[in-house]
């Protein structure tokens, strides 16, 4: 009896231990990565990974497919770049300006979009994001097609010089970890449980008395704010903010990253972003168009492993043994 109980306890502990080991290993790899890879390349991956994870909060956990997330990503990049360059605020405050700006933008776009479902929701987000794109094209503070350039990285809390790549990398890594921790907390909270129930059966959630629109809007604003965190960070990493970040192609790219990595998995979008950014970087000098390669990869992913890279791993025999089993609608 005692032996059975001990075996059961050991069986329950295995996934927790395995998951902790994976998490620790991932953190160590990220800490050591600048020794092996170009820091700006790594920072780009982390920015896009955070963007994709924030997008996944909406798609994977609330079931809302937004086609306008570039507005929050690129908008925050503009807000942060403008605040840091023109107002001379420190980088941490500049990022905060980007986050608040993206959240406000999210509240406006979300307010209109959540009134519709499915393809109509996606189209409204796309239309409003494109309106924002043309606003950015015309507005004076964005400098039109030139964008905001030579954005100073500044000193973190007035102490740490972020113009040094290694300092900037660890700053980006810290923000990335904080962003992922916030997303993890949201999806593993009482509120996150209601989001999942809305994704699973919206009509039932309404019949249980939940104001589904309010929950969707809250999730939309949270996702926009976290996307803004990634956008603001990207403006500091690359020291510019341009129209590329607010265009519809960017909204498409984040969908691609999320699908490739695995919808509804916390770290799936990280792998999706890493794959897409790596392909873009290494094929940039090739004569073969990158978009065709990413298109082929996307098709292969949809046809061969619909759960995405991480989703398939979670559902593999090894993944299940390690306690990662993942149940999601496809």
């Amino acid at each position, binding site marked *: 009896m005692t032996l059975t109980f001990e075996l059961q306890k050991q069986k329950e502990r295995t996934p927790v231990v395995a998951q902790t080991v994976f998490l620790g290993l991932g953190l160590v790899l990220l800490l050591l990565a600048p020794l092996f890879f170009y820091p700006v390349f790594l920072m780009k991956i982390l920015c896009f990974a955070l963007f994709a994870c924030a997008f996944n909060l909406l798609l994977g956990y609330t079931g809302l497919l937004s086609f306008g997330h570039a507005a929050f990503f690129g908008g925050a990049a503009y807000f942060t770049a403008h605040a840091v360059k023109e107002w001379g605020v420190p980088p941490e405050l500049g990022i905060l300006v980007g986050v608040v700006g993206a959240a406000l933008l999210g509240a406006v776009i979300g307010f209109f979009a959540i009134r519709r479902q499915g393809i109509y929701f996606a189209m409204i987000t796309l239309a409003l994001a494109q309106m924002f794109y043309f606003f950015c094209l015309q507005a004076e503070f964005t400098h039109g097609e030139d964008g905001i350039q030579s954005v100073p990285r500044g000193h973190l809390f007035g102490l740490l010089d972020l113009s040094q790549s290694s300092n900037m990398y660890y700053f980006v890594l810290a923000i990335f970890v904080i962003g992922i921790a916030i997303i993890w*907390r949201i999806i593993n909270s009482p509120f996150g449980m*209601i989001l999942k129930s809305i994704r699973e059966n919206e009509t039932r959630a309404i019949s249980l008395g939940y104001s589904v629109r309010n929950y969707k809007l809250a999730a939309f604003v949270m996702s926009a704010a976290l996307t803004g965190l990634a956008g603001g960070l990207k403006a500091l990493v690359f020291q510019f903010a341009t129209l590329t970040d607010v265009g519809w192609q960017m909204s498409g790219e984040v969908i691609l990253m999320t699908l490739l990595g695995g919808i509804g998995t916390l770290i799936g979008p990280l792998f999706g972003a890493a794959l897409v950014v790596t392909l873009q970087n290494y094929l940039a000098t090739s004569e073969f168009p990158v978009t065709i390669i990413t298109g082929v990869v996307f098709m292969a992913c949809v046809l061969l492993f619909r759960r995405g890279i991480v989703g398939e791993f979670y559902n593999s025999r090894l993944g299940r043994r390690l306690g990662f089993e993942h149940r999601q609608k496809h």
Partner: protein
Amino acid sequence: MVLAARGLRRDFGGFTAVKDVDLDVHHARVHALIGPNGAGKTTVFNLLTKFLQPTHGTITLLGEDITNTAPDKVARMGLVRSFQISAVFPHLTVLDNVRVALQRPNRLATQFWKPLSALDALNGKADQLIRSVGLEKERNALAADLSYGRKRVLEIATTLALDPKVLLLDEPMAGMGHEDVGMVAEIIREVARERAVLMVEHNLSVVATLCHHVTVLQRGEILAEGDYASVSDDPRVRTAYMGTEEA
């Protein structure tokens, strides 16, 4: 009287699905809404719970006009329904399904900063509900893995979790085995001691033993009303159900 409808009508283009329906649902009574397929029973349910807006007519719940009230607010006022096709959260466990229903009344639905373990405070009440519908063995199973009948039972548990004042059950026995039918009938009888219950049901033996009042619908209109004995003796009802008065 806790729920009342007057002159309820719903048009879909040129088709009238529900026409001039008056309905009174009383406290501590089980009211059955019966009728052949396509009679408009589920449409009436959708109108009463505000999932559909009536073209004409008024609905009052506990004396308050809810004709233009949103469905989620109607649920918060105490009018809770189940669905014809089992409505559960398929990729959540049985326990989580019940806890989701308990979260809102226990003010544990908006906290995005708290860990999931905060929901453990609901386990006592959730387990009690799970036991009351005989799902304790499936407590940690995914709702998607339950049989159809067990899903219906789970839906009833989540509906009861809200402690509603009026319960609208749309074919609660559909797809259930004999054991479950008896158990659910007993649950409904128990529940109706302190609440009003309006149910759509095709199982006429259940209607006969459980319901105090029966309303028969045909082609969107009320055909007959009264207790089961008087309604079942009504030749119009016999004709509607069997196609012949002598049946």
